[in-house]
C-alpha cells in the first residue's frame, strides 16, 4: 500500500540480516536485564522445588493457581504463530509475510515457557517424567484417561511440529547467512542449512512441506488449547470449570491473546530492528481487522459461558459468579478484565486510524493480554474457591512471592528467547520478503487498494 517501497534483494538481505551480523549495545543491555529476571525466576522455581509448596500462597481448597494460570496464558500466546502462518499461508493472505517468522518463534518460546509451568507446579518435580510412557518396567504407566496425560502429548507434538515448521521455512534464510558467514559460523549455519542451494526442486519441496505442515498443524493447534481447556472442563467437581463450551472458548481466546502478542512483538521489532520498511502499517491494519472479529467472537463465548452457567440458577454456580463478578476484590479484577480484555481493544480495533497508529496498537495489544491473563485467573482461582456447596470449606487465595516472581520472570524468559533467537536468525523471513517483492501486486477493490492474493508455486 502507500507506505510500501520497492526493495532490491540486496537491500532486503542487508536490512534483515543486520541484527544477525551486528550487535548493538541495547541488545547486550536487554539480554543482561532479562537474564537477571530469568535467573530470579529460575531461582524461585528451585527454591520452590527444594522447599515444597509450603512456600507459595497455595492452600486448601485453592490448589491450582498462579502457575496454572500462567500455563494457560502462555499456551494461549503460543497459538498466534500457527494461526498466522498456517491459516494465512493456506488462505494465501499476502500481508502475512513479515509477521510469520516472529509469530512462529513466539510460539516456540511461549510453549517452552508454558511447559515449565506444570513442571514447577507438581509437588515432586523429580518424578514428573512419570507422565510419559517411560517406566513400564517398574509398573509405572500413565493413565490415559487423565487430561494431564493429554496435555504433555499435545504440547510436545505442537512444539515439535512448530519447530519443524519454523526450521523448514527458515532453510533458505539460513543458507543466505551461511553464504555470508565466516569462521565457526560458516560451519554452524552450513550444518543447519542441510545443503540448501536454492535449486527449483528444493524450493518446490520446501513450499510443499510448508503447506503440508500447515495443514497438519492446524488440527494440532485446535486440539492443544482444547485439551488445555479440558483440564478444567472435565473436572466435574468444580462448577466454575465444568462447562462444555470450554474447548472452542479457550481456542478462540488463545487466538485473541496470541495474535495480540504478535502485534506487541511486531511493534517492538519495528522499533528495535528499524524494520519500518518491512513491518508496515498495513500489517497492523490487517491484524487489527482480524482481531476485531476474533475479539467479538471470543466475547460471544465469554457471554455464552456466563449465560449457560447461570441458566440453571444452581446455587453453587450463582455464588461462584457472584464472587467472580461482584465481590471485592474480584469485582475490580473483573472490571479490569472486561475493559482491557474486551471493551477497549474491540472498539479501538474498529477504527482505521487506531489500526494505523503503531504505538496505539502496541498498547492495545498489551491490554488484550492483561485482560486474557486475568480471564484465566478469574476462571481458575474463584472456581476453586467456590467448589460445590461446602460453604464451610470455601476459601481464598493470595499469591506468595515465590510464584509471583516465577510468573513474572516467564515474560522475561520469552523475551530473552526471542532476543537470542534474533541474534542467530532473522526474525523477518528473507525469502518470504523477497518472494513478496517478486509477487507484489495490488488490486483495486472499490475505493481501496488491497494486497493481491497470489498462487504460490
Amino acid at each position, binding site marked *: 500500500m502507500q507506505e510500501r517501497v520497492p526493495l532490491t534483494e540486496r537491500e532486503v538481505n542487508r536490512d534483515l540480516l543486520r541484527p544477525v551480523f551486528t550487535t548493538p549495545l541495547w541488545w547486550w543491555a536487554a539480554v543482561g536485564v532479562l537474564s537477571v529476571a530469568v535467573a530470579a525466576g529460575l531461582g524461585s522455581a528451585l527454591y520452590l522445588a527444594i522447599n515444597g509448596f*509450603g512456600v507459595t500462597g497455595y492452600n486448601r481448597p485453592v490448589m491450582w493457581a498462579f502457575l496454572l494460570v500462567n500455563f494457560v496464558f502462555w499456551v494461549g500466546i503460543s497459538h498466534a504463530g500457527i494461526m498466522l502462518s498456517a491459516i494465512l499461508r493456506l488462505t494465501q493472505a499476502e500481508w502475512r509475510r513479515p509477521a510469520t517468522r516472529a509469530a512462529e518463534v513466539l510460539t516456540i518460546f511461549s510453549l517452552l515457557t508454558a511447559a515449565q509451568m506444570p513442571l514447577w507446579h*507438581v*509437588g515432586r518435580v523429580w*518424578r514428573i517424567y*512419570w507422565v510419559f510412557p517411560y517406566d513400564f518396567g517398574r509398573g*509405572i504407566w500413565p493413565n490415559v484417561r487423565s487430561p494431564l496425560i493429554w496435555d504433555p502429548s499435545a504440547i510436545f507434538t505442537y512444539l515439535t511440529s512448530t519447530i519443524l515448521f519454523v526450521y523448514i521455512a527458515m532453510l533458505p534464510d539460513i543458507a543466505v547467512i551461511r553464504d555470508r558467514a565466516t569462521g565457526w559460523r560458516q560451519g554452524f549455519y552450513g550444518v543447519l542449512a542441510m545443503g540448501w542451494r536454492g535449486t527449483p526442486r528444493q524450493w518446490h519441496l520446501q513450499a510443499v512441506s510448508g503447506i503440508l505442515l500447515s495443514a497438519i498443524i492446524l488440527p494440532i493447534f485446535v486440539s492443544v488449547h482444547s485439551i488445555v481447556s479440558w483440564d478444567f472442563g472435565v473436572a466435574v*467437581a468444580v462448577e466454575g470449570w465444568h462447562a462444555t463450551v470450554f474447548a472452542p472458548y479457550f481456542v478462540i481466546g488463545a487466538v485473541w491473546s496470541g495474535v495480540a502478542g504478535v502485534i506487541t512483538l511486531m511493534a517492538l521489532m519495528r522499533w528495535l530492528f528499524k524494520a519500518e520498511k518491512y513491518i508496515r502499517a498495513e500489517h497492523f491494519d490487517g491484524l487489527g481487522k482480524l482481531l476485531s472479529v476474533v475479539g467479538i467472537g471470543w466475547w460471544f463465548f465469554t457471554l455464552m459461558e456466563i449465560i449457560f452457567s447461570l441458566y440453571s440458577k444452581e446455587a453453587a454456580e450463582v455464588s461462584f459468579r457472584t464472587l467472580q463478578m461482584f465481590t471485592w476484590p474480584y469485582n475490580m479484577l473483573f472490571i479490569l478484565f472486561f475493559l482491557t480484555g474486551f471493551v477497549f481493544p474491540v472498539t479501538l480495533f474498529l477504527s482505521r486510524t487506531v489500526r494505523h497508529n503503531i504505538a496505539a496498537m502496541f498498547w492495545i495489544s498489551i491490554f488484550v493480554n492483561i485482560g486474557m491473563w486475568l480471564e484465566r485467573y478469574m476462571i481458575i482461582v474463584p472456581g476453586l474457591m467456590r467448589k460445590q456447596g461446602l460453604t464451610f470449606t470455601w476459601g481464598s487465595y493470595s499469591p506468595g512471592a515465590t510464584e509471583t516472581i516465577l510468573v513474572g520472570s516467564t515474560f522475561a524468559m520469552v523475551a530473552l528467547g526471542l532476543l537470542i533467537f534474533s541474534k542467530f536468525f532473522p526474525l523477518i523471513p528473507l525469502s518470504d520478503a523477497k518472494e513478496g517483492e517478486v509477487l507484489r501486486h495490488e488490486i483495486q477493490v472499490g475505493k481501496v487498494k488491497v494486497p493481491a492474493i497470489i498462487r504460490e508455486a
Partner: protein
Amino acid sequence: MVTTRVRHKWGMVVDLDRCTGCQACVVACQAENNIPINLEQHFLQRRAIEWIRIERYWEGLEEAEKTGDLSKVKARFIPILCQHCENAPCEPVCPVYATYHNNEGLNVQIYNRCIGTRYCVNNCPYQVRFFNFWQPTWPESLHNQLNPHVTVRTRGIMEKCTFCVQRLRKGGRKEVQEGKRLDDKEFDAQSGMFAPACARACPTDTLVFGDMNDPNSRVSTMAKDNRNYKLLASIGTEPNVIYLKKVDLDASDAATH
C-alpha cells in the same frame, strides 16, 4: 483357603442425628494414621490436614436477627471423610494412577506413586484430599507413637482417608489364616479390632462401618434406613458413605434441607 470367599465391599453409614461434633473421630484418625501435627501456622495457612473433619453450618441466622430470638440459631455438624466413591472423579484425572479403586470398594492412594499434581483434589467434590505442603516432622520422642503400619508421608504428595486400610488388611490376613470370612462384628465400630479408628472412637455411634456385601451387617441394614441420602448425589459419584438425615423438629419435610 478363602479363594472362593465373597469379596468385601466396605462402606460407612453416618447418622447425622447422633453426631454431636465432638471431634473424637478427628483426633482418633490423626493418631492412627500418622497425620502430621497441625500447628497454628498450618491453620493460618489453611493447610491443616484432617482426613475426617467436622463441618459446622449455621442455620436460622436471619430469623434470629429478625426476631432477636437467639434460640432460633442452630449449629449443624457433619463429619466428612473420603466417600470412597464407586464412580470417583478423583481417579480418572490422576495422570499416574496414584489413586485408584480397589476390589473392596476403597479409593486407595499410593503415596510413592503420587507426583503431586493436585488434580485429584480439585476434582474431589467433597474436599477430602489433603496435600502435604510441608515435609511432616515430629519431635524425635514423638516418633515413638507413630503407627508402624502406616506410612509417614513426605511433602509434595496427596493423602486422604483410607478407611484405615491397614486394619482391614489385618482382618483380611486373619481371614486367610482362619480360612473363612470374619464375622462382621470384627469390623464393626462397636468393638471390632479391625474397624476404622474414627468409627471405633465415635462415642455416639454416629459412624457405622462394615461390609456392604453382607446383607445382614449393621451397615447394610442402616444404609436402607429411610433417612438415607448421599452427599452431593447429583454429581453421580456413588459414594460408599451413606448419610442419614438429621432429625429436626422444625424441618419442613417438603424442602428436605
